[in-house]
């Protein structure tokens, strides 16, 4: 069971129409790979974030499928186009069914 999962997202708060911006995201998560063994030699069950989706005003920016080979505290950096003022919605899906969300507003001046 994942605990203390905190998403952190860096998005510029202002942009010009059609501008390409860089977004960085980080979420604290152990990303237990299912390959490690505990002190008694038993396999620790896999528990990872398996999908990460970013939308802007409902339109898709990036959709990532994660495997256990993604490091602890998954980090992503990517480029997005901002056509108008609106909200970036970030969603992480956990193996255990949990869904973590964050949102950032961008104003086009």
């Amino acid at each position, binding site marked *: 069971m994942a605990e203390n999962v905190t998403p952190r997202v860096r998005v510029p708060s202002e942009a010009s129409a059609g501008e390409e911006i860089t977004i960085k995201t980080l979420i604290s998560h152990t990303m237990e790979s299912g390959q*490690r063994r505990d002190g008694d030699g038993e396999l620790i069950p896999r528990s990872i974030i398996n999908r990460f989706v970013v939308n802007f005003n409902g339109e898709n*920016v990036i959709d990532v*499928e994660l*495997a256990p080979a*993604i*490091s*602890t505290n*998954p980090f992503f950096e*990517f480029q997005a186009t901002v056509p108008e003022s609106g909200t970036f919605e970030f969603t992480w899906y956990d193996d255990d069914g949990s869904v973590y969300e964050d949102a950032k507003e961008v104003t086009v001046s």
Partner: protein
Amino acid sequence: MKLTRRDTILTAVGAATVAMLPMRAFASTDDAIAEFTGGADVGSEGITLTAPEIAENGNTVPIEVSAPGATEIKVLAAGNPTPEVATFAFGPLAAAQMASTRIRLANSQDVVAVAKMADGSFVQARQEVKVTIGGCGG
């Protein structure tokens, strides 16, 4: 513990199975690429995979993939217990078909990125990474 004949045979079978596992892992990288491309020819132009030549810590190796015009990029680590690393699908608001992340590498190996282009063709890039400390908690 007293070893019976049956125990000995079971142990031998178990050891043989474990010994065969790495072979399966190597084969499955090609399988994973074939599954992604559907067996189509894979070119090498128009995709960039940036990874360090030497990674001191296999637990967190920064990589960047970029393939202008791609709809999807799949990243594989040929020497990991399971080769899949991540698949990036780019939507209409992706300004560039590129992404950076941090991955785990069990040992020194090739990292492979395969991109599916908008016209349905495939390109791939390969980069060897030497790992000083492996990242599988073994």
